[in-house]
């Protein structure tokens, strides 16, 4: 499957929400879309393009905006596809993919708690890896780690 095939299948379903389809090394292509067309895209990718297996959902913090990316696999075409969307940092939310692919459930929980991207209509958006009640979102660029020497001073007061 080539990027052109992806464009042909997705452009009618998404219309203006499909921003670009770029070639990506080792994959069918990289689909950039606007978050309004998320659910249409997921349905089209799963049903029309046979990418039935969603394997990864992740988030990246580019300080002025954040990016959510999805990686899906197709058994019939034996290929991956990469879907990515940009969300503004002040209003970081996107529709959940767990209604289309149940495997997105835990991945979206982890992306929310680490990169602070809310997934609308997620059935169970709570902490997975960080403790319950942890208020920080550690993988944001604004969250700084300590140097090892600083830790020794701080822990003397424990």
């Amino acid at each position, binding site marked *: 499957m080539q990027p052109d095939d992806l464009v042909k299948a997705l452009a009618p379903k998404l219309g203006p929400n499909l921003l670009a389809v770029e070639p990506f090394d080792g994959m069918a292509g990289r689909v950039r879309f606007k978050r309004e067309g998320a659910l249409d895209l997921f349905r089209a990718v799963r049903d029309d393009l046979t990418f039935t297996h969603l394997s990864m959902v992740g988030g990246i913090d580019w300080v002025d905006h954040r990016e959510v990316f999805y990686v899906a696999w197709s058994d019939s075409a034996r290929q991956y596809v990469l879907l990515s969307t940009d969300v503004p940092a002040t209003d970081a939310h996107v529709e959940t993919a767990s209604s289309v692919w149940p495997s997105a459930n835990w991945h979206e929980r982890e992306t929310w708690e680490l990169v602070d991207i809310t997934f609308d209509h997620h059935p169970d958006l709570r902490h997975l890896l960080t403790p319950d009640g942890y208020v920080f979102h550690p993988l944001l660029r604004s*969250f700084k780690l300590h140097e090892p020497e600083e830790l020794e001073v701080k822990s003397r007061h*424990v």
Partner: protein
Amino acid sequence: MTTPSTQVMPPSKSAAAPDLPAPLAELPMASQAAVPFVEIETLRVKEFIPAAKEALTSLIAEQGQSKLIRPVFNWAGRNSLFPLHWGLACCAIEFAAGFGARWDAERFGVVPRSSPRQCDLMIVNGTVTWKVAHKLITLYEQMPEPKWVIAMGNCATGGGPFRTAYSVVPGVDKLVPVDVYIAGCPPRPEAMLDGILRLEQLIRERKE
């Protein structure tokens, strides 16, 4: 001429002296009033027992605890250390290998137990995170006294390669008192056995 039936008697010291055998005749007791031999022995024993009792009690009170009872307890404790069957991270794989056939840890009496109530040793083998800290302290408190903790590996000693992480406790000694630290990432099973033997040496020298 003396007749054969005549017995030769030793000269008595006094007419009122009893029939005592020769060694006892020299004792000062010989000049006392007549008391039969058996009663004298009983009298001596009767005086001896309370004296002996008093001596033994003071001996046990001062030194028996440290010379008799404490060594037995130490011997029993160090030869039957039961660690908690608990693996946190990579060091747990070397901990499990230490119980395999090549480095048999059970020959030292070390048998992992599943419940902390039956353990006296907690080997912290892996990275301790803040999320598990409460559970680790609970497990430590569930162990009965006397109990020891071995920090196995760099993560348990001081955070290891993850020391700068936001979710990692920089060393388990921030949570529970540690007796032996084993360095390594991960320490070989021989190093773990060496750590257990050092703990046994510590227990051997335990005074109270």
